[in-house]
């Protein structure tokens, strides 16, 4: 099982929509996917219509007796399961801090189910916290949505610096998210990111109203707009990621 995490220090960059749509694309290409919603807002959980619930809350989940298997729910795609989030995850940092090896805890939770899935996709909350450090230790790759703006570029730089200071680090697979090609500044920044950032993925996800409609439809866009440019972009993004992760 490969562990991927949609992650960014910055909020509102499209982490959750990326996680949900990539889960759908991974399943369509023959993978068994576990989506793990670690964000207390539970947006990924909401998008797949699952009730927000972590049995016993964050404390029990990361305790010695905690297990992911007990929390797994099917989504409407038989190949995608989810470990839903709930509001108790706002205390996840504290709960992890109470464990013996906090940064190894999430990897330890994934280990018993590694044979059941081909891909675990963790949807992370923003920021660099103990939770994110535990994600870094568990993940094979971080999928980093990056809006082509100066501020996003700066946070990507912060992330790569942090990771290089804290080895071993997962692979960083950044890509352009919420791209508005009408904006010259975004186009220029994207060109700059593609040229300068090693491993920056070629596929960009457009800033699209279809993606916003996920909240209304509560499903990945491939389910309600299968031929939209955004769906095709996620399909290509998954191919980019698979090409990097499975080689």
């Amino acid at each position, binding site marked *: 099982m490969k562990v991927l995490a949609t992650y960014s220090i910055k909020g509102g960059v499209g982490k959750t929509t990326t996680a949900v749509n990539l889960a759908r694309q991974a399943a369509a290409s023959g993978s068994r996917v576990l989506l793990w919603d670690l964000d207390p807002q539970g947006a990924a959980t909401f998008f797949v219509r699952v009730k927000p619930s972590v049995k016993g809350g964050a404390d029990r989940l990361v305790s010695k007796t905690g297990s992911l298997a007990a929390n797994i729910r099917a989504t409407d795609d038989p190949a995608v399961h989810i470990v839903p989030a709930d509001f108790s995850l706002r205390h996840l940092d504290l709960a992890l801090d109470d464990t013996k090896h906090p940064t190894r805890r999430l990897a330890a939770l994934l280990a018993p189910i590694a044979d059941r899935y*081909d891909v675990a996709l963790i949807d992370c909350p923003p920021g660099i916290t103990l939770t994110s450090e535990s994600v870094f230790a568990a993940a094979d790759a971080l999928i980093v949505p990056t809006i082509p703006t100066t501020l996003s570029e700066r946070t990507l730089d912060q992330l790569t610096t942090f990771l290089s200071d804290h080895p071993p680090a997962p692979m960083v697979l950044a890509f352009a998210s919420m791209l508005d090609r009408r904006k010259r500044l975004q186009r220029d920044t994207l060109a700059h990111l593609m040229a300068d950032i090693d491993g920056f993925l070629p596929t960009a996800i457009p800033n699209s109203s279809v993606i916003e409609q996920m909240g209304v439809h509560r499903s990945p866009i491939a389910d309600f707009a299968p031929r939209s440019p955004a769906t095709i972009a996620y399909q290509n993004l998954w191919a980019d990621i698979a090409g990097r992760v499975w080689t």
Partner: protein
Amino acid sequence: MTVATFQLPGKDVTAIVASLAELGFVFGPPRTLTTTLVDTFDGRLHRSGLRLELRTSEGIELVLSGADVVPAHLLLDTAPAVVADLAPGPFRSRVASLVGIRALLPQIRVRMEQSAGTWRDGTDKTVAVAELNERVHVVNGADTGLFGTIEIHEVPGYAKQTRRALEVLRRAGLAECSVDTLTQCAEAADVDLAGFKATATVPLHAPMAAIDGVRAVLANLEVAISANWRGAIDNVDTKFLHDLRIAVRRTRTVLAASKAVIPADVLDPASEGFKWLAGATGAARDLDVYLLEWEQYTAPLGVDTATALESVRDLLTRHHRNAHVALSQVLESDRASALITDWRGWLDTPVDDDGLPRRAGHPIGKVVARRIARAHDALIDEGRLIGPDTPADDVHDLRKDAKKLRYLIECFSSILPDKSRKKYVKQLKALQENLGEHQDAEVHIALLRSITPELVSAEADANTMVAIGELIQRLEQTRLAARTEFAERFADYDSAATQHSFDALIEAISQ
């Protein structure tokens, strides 16, 4: 995953649908679904607890599932014949790790009118799934008639709703089936989803008459020969020819060991016939192996050399094609047909005790012990004569003798004590590996040398000729390394430890 399957009553199913609708199930319109269970000839997926279904309705979908296995699915344009036809990714990797080089073959094809029922909660989330299957029938085999089922599928995390659906169907008095719809179809059509897996031996008892024991083993080998015959003709995958050849070689070994057991008028033509058959299958198998291991041979030479060797591969591929055409002609010939028919005829007919050779009535254990002991002693004697300058043919003869000994042990393993057999075979296997490496390199060098004139007359590129020289040189190094290692390997085999495990092996059956 299917939680439970119920038999539908012959007539109206409206009441059942209505009962489920009361819970919240909504059924879609029926669609014609054709499902083909796909597996290897030897049922590798089934034996691993997996099921690969090719579902054809509006499009083609491949579904890999199993008990307590999260289902994976792929949309396809065409049905895959081999794993390599699937796009790279986890799905292909999982299937490839189990099926290897074997072709994906349809085991059973089932057609039905299926209505999918889903129960959704207040947020429109699916919490239980039912499939109403009507007019279910097998379309690629025996006429199994029409029947109907309703299956309840698990939705992980929503066990309560699944339980309630099951309660409704049980209350309605529907008969619960012990297996799901597709398995029922396979059973009705007499299709064994475990496939065909050849075994070398059959259950034997050391005191039984040698003629009975030998015939039981030979009959079992004949089943393997016949089972792989068609696949070898059609070259469905290389394992068919491999298994056919193994069964033929084992047959020859058992025949050679049965001169005092099987009447000469049966033994002689059979020995002659199977010798001819083994010889006729050799070229195709050698080329199968060469092409299967091509990457392994050429990759260490570097990309440039490997590229320069592509035209050699093309030529070998042509030879391979021709060799398989020739093989098919042999297997479809009157001589081959008569050989197998006569052989099967003798195996199926009870033997007349009168006129049987002198050891036919001896205990099989004693007869086998004597033959194995003789083969072991010969191997030791011949091996001791092999030195650095011994011709390659003598090394090859030693390899053949080691193989025959191994086949004898395998074919009569059911009367040999497990522990000492495994210990002894481990030692024998180590020697065989060394002899095999030497022989494979020898055969492949000879093959490359034999096609070199063809390449010259076809005015092959100079780079190709240089590359073929490099490949021969590399194979020669492998051959020499194996030859150098032989002394050590043989010394390990020709040891007190081997003799000890060998004595224990035959002591138990030679009483």
